């Protein structure tokens, strides 16, 4: 049951609200009532609430200022399954059951997981119309009539824009409200037209790519039906864009102008016309231009007592003012509001009005009782989306605003965003933009191109806008500007602004950062141009103006507009890419076995790889030690399926590999494999791996797990762009083969049981050879003798769909030998003991094969990518870093990877605390570091300046504010003579 509470400020009739549908909700625990079609702000005002949350830093009392997205004060948090903060009350639709808290300028992020769904839509459209005021609706209607695909975006939940505030207006002979409904019905009936209300285009990018946020369904009530998203991000490819984003009104800064009861005149108009709410009974309308006069008339018609304070001199011609005087309104020309008094509730109870001279200096002030001050400081076109595309803007002194100089390519400007501040002008520009945009997509009749000045209403624009006095700030009755709030969200005053200019700042970008003006959640929608205006006055004699004219805001310039236009939740941007859907997870055929055997996984690119298999009571170190011992002393097996695999095929495949790898591939015999290193043209290591020669024209190449896609790209690039004459093709077969490494002195026995037809003897199956065979299970396999541990080892490759079966067969074949599964951590320890480098860990794009001590792999007789660089002076002269091993003197120590190495005597008196006075030259850094089961100590690999000539030296490793002595040694620490690989 709803019980509608008192709404003392609600008018009996009027408004675009549904009085048959009352809504009741809570604000700070108190009941607030309104109707469907209200915002939280309009319902609060209807109920007589004047004050909202205090300001963020100065705790100044605040009220509702605006009626749209520019609202700086009335920010709320709404409770839900996941609370949402920092919502302007002026944009949130009133709904039954809302639980609203008023914020003091700052929100609280709800730490609970948001259970709502968010999703993404990608669309192409001929004409995107942004804004559904008179210009946008007229454009959409014309474009739709041609049969073009049209998408209309309106951030509000109602269409109509400025027409909503003035229901008395007639459009094409019918009331505005009716006209909007007619156009909406037309658009919705057109098959190729989509009208998206509650949808804000928040980003505009190259190629007319737009990103918009749609708020769908009930935002805060019961969860939507499963599968229906709460919000949707639209990615729009638009052939043409019509920007009909309108304009925003500015305020004038005076003493205490941030007090509750001071509102934008246009907002007052909107509350009156759209919501049938009269926010005050005794109203001072303070204006610098004609646009506030219709507001004054509307207030009078609603029963308010109105005094108009017009900053323009009596001598300035203004038909709107003359008409107001003739209608009996009290008008005070050449005057300004210089301050306001607050009542017990801190809201306005009187305005101080004084005449001002040409410089803006006030005379004696008079106190005028008022519970509402409606301010108009002029209008600023909403050019954010235009500026995001680097569209040019200039200061129009007549319109007193920054206006677009001309549209961005592929776009049209229509309505008040282009400075057309009257409805008929908006309609005319909209129709024209809609027709032309459609025509340029091949719909409807074609048109000649037009210049900016030929656009409709261009000559009429200034006359229609009338004269605006560029009054930005009015001195108060007391000295100083500490009570003149410029940016209400950041609590920054004109005094703060003057402090910035006093500190010598001239650039608006510097001043923005010094003061933080314009950096709030509202991004300075209300304060931006006013700030520039005040700067114009403050810097009048300090910044050069255009020759022969006084300084204008155009000489100061605007700050940069960036997406998003209004705040967007991260949840919406993430869309469905959360949790398991965040990224694809690649698993190997034996994944389920790893899970069953308690593997701890690590992510390697998208792959899930077992890191180690802890047994009862084991930590990682214990498990890795056990796994290493099995590989060194018995037999162990590793899932190596993730290794990148590429088939290289074609008559010129040998020649191609010969050019790609630093070592030779022409003479590699069929049935044998070879380890190779590939480098970039600057000679740096790019990847490594073993290639098997399957046939004269066919190789099977392996690449580093995390680098496989890049290697394929690399091969294709060289093949296509430099050597298109070579007959060679590449196919990724990573997913086609499952690979198991069987490692250790007893691996031969396991392979013999697994593949009884295979001669596994040392003589019959040499190192770096492979055999195609059929396993005892009947499964065809390709078995290679390759080692990444230095031990006798085999790699068993089978078709992926046999991967799990063969893995299990290996486990069974080795069961009596206590065959042990091992993960990537043990793999790393084993390979590091042998100084096998990992590309990307022990190298970083600045390391040559020679730096790794691998001169033997660099051919001196053939040409290959990178070769020329090895004779560059940059590589032949001076000192290079070499890969060496480092042994901590404290054998139990495991150095952190990344630890810096320095000369012991380079420290001076530096103790490791805070920062050294002078930089300490570094010798290099630790690239890999582990505890070695075989050596019984910690060890690492490091890139060290001139490292091979420092073997035997002791240096210091610096990490975590401490130093440790480490001995530099030869890279290979285990089985230096390589005796173990043949078993």
């Amino acid at each position: 049951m709803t019980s509608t509470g008192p709404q003392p400020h609600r008018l009996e009739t009027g408004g675009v609200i549904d009085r048959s549908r009352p809504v009741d909700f809570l604000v700070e625990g108190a009941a607030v009532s309104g109707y469907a079609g209200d915002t939280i702000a309009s319902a609060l005002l209807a109920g007589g609430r004047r004050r909202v949350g205090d300001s963020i830093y100065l705790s100044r009392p605040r009220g509702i200022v605006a009626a749209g997205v520019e609202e700086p004060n009335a920010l709320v948090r709404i409770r839900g399954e996941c609370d949402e903060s920092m919502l302007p009350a002026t944009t949130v639709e009133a709904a039954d059951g809302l639980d609203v808290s008023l914020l003091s300028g700052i929100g609280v992020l709800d730490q609970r997981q948001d259970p709502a769904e968010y999703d993404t839509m990608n669309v192409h459209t001929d004409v995107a119309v942004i804004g559904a005021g008179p210009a946008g609706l007229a454009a959409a209607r014309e474009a739709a009539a041609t049969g073009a695909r049209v998408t209309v975006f309106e951030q509000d939940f109602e269409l109509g824009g400025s027409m909503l505030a003035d229901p008395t207006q007639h459009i094409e002979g019918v009331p505005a409200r009716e006209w909007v409904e007619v156009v909406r019905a037309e658009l919705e009936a057109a098959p190729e037209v989509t009208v998206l209300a509650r949808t804000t285009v928040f980003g505009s990018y190259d190629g007319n790519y737009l990103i918009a946020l749609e708020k769908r369904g009930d935002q805060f009530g019961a969860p939507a039906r499963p599968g229906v998203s709460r919000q949707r991000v639209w990615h729009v490819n638009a052939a043409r864009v019509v920007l009909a984003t309108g304009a925003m009104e500015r305020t004038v800064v005076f003493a205490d102008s941030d007090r509750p009861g001071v509102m934008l005149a246009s907002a007052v108009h909107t509350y009156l016309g759209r919501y049938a709410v009269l926010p005050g009974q005794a109203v001072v309308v303070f204006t610098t231009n004609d646009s506030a006069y219709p507001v004054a008339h509307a207030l009078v018609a609603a029963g308010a007592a109105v005094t108009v304070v017009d900053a323009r001199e009596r001598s300035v011609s203004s038909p709107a003012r003359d008409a107001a005087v003739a209608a009996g309104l009290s008008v005070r020309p050449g005057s300004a509001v210089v301050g306001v008094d607050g009542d017990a509730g801190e809201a306005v109870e009187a305005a101080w009005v004084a005449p001002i001279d040409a410089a803006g200096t006030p005379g004696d002030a008079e106190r005028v009782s008022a519970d509402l001050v409606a301010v108009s400081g002029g209008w600023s076109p909403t050019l954010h989306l235009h500026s995001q595309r680097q569209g040019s803007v200039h200061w129009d002194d007549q319109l007193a605003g920054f206006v677009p100089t001309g549209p961005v390519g592929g776009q049209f400007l229509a309505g008040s965003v282009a400075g057309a501040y009257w409805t008929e002008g908006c309609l005319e520009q909209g129709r024209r933009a809609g027709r032309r945009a459609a025509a340029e997509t091949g719909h409807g009749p074609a048109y000649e191109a037009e210049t900016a000045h030929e656009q409709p209403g261009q000559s009429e624009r200034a006359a229609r806008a009338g004269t605006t006095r560029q009054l930005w700030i009015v001195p108060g009755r007391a000295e100083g500007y500490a009570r003149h709030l410029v940016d209400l969200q950041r609590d920054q005053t004109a005094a703060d602004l003057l402090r910035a200019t006093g500190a010598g700042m001239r650039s608006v970008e510097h001043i923005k950062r010094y003061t933080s003006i314009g950096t709030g959640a509202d991004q300075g929608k209300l304060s931006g141009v006013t700030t520039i205006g005040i700067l114009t006055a403050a810097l009048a004699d300090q910044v050069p103006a255009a020759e022969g004219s006084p300084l204008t805001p155009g000489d100061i310039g605007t700050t940069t507009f960036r997406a998003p236009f209004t705040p967007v939740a991260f949840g919406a941007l993430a869309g469905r890419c959360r949790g398991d859907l965040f990224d694809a997870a690649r698993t190997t055929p034996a994944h389920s076995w790893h899970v069953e055997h308690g593997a701890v996984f690590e992510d390697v690119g998208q792959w899930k790889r077992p890191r180690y298999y802890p047994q009862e009571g084991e930590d990682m170190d214990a498990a890795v030690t056990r796994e290493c011992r099995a590989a060194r002393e018995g037999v162990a097996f590793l899932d190596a399926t993730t290794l990148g695999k590429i088939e290289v095929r074609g008559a010129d495949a040998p020649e191609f590999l010969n050019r790609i790898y630093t070592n030779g591939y022409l003479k590699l015999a069929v049935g044998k494999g070879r380890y190779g290193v590939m480098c970039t043209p600057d000679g740096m290591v790019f990847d490594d791996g073993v290639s098997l020669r399957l046939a004269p024209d066919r190789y099977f190449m392996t690449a580093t797990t995390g680098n496989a896609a890049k290697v394929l790209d690399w091969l294709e690039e060289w093949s296509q762009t430099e050597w298109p004459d070579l007959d060679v093709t590449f196919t990724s077969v990573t997913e086609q083969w499952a690979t198991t490494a069987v490692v250790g002195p007893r691996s031969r026995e396991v392979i013999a049981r697994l593949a009884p037809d295979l001669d596994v003897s040392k003589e019959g199956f040499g190192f770096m050879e492979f055999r195609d065979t059929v396993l005892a299970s009947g499964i065809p396999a390709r078995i290679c003798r390759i080692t990444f541990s230095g031990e006798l080892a085999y790699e068993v490759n089978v078709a992926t769909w046999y991967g799990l079966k063969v893995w299990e067969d290996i486990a069974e074949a080795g069961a009596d030998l206590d065959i042990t599964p091992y993960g990537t951590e043990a793999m790393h320890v084993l390979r590091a003991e042998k100084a096998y480098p990992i590309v990307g860990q022990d190298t970083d794009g600045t390391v040559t094969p020679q730096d790794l001590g691998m001169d033997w792999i660099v051919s001196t007789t053939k040409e290959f990518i990178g070769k020329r660089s090895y004779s560059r002076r940059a590589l032949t002269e001076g000192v290079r870093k070499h890969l060496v091993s480092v042994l901590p003197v404290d054998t139990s120590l495991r150095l952190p990877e990344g630890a810096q190495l320095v000369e012991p005597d380079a420290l001076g008196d530096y103790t490791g605390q805070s920062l050294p006075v002078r930089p300490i030259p570094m010798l290099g850094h630790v690239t890999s570091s582990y505890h070695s089961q075989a050596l019984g100590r910690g060890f690492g690999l490091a890139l060290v300046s001139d490292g091979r000539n420092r073997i035997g030296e002791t240096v210091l490793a610096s990490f975590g504010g401490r130093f440790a002595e480490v001995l530099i040694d030869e890279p290979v620490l285990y089985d230096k003579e390589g005796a173990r690989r043949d078993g």
Partner: protein
Amino acid sequence: MLTIDCPHCGPRPETEFGYGGQAHVAYPEDPSALTDEEWAGYLFYRDNPRGEFAERWVHSAGCRKWFNAVRDTRTYRISATYTSAGPVPAGIVRPRTDVPHPVSKGA
């Protein structure tokens, strides 16, 4: 986001493509014949014009073919795309890479 007209597949979103830097920079015929300066010119120096720029793109998530595009670096407008077999659009100057880049002189 740009819409890029792949010569093989037609217009596709930029996210399907990879970028490959300046076009028409051929790998030198005989690197060993180049001086260090000339080789460094090939390795490290590329043009960075304000205006039309011929550059390489690859349709990574499509046909995986490399092609060239002429893009205006001021507006990001792509005026032409063409394959290595196709004619080079008028006005595109192929830089020579077997001579030192001007910037590298005296370095």
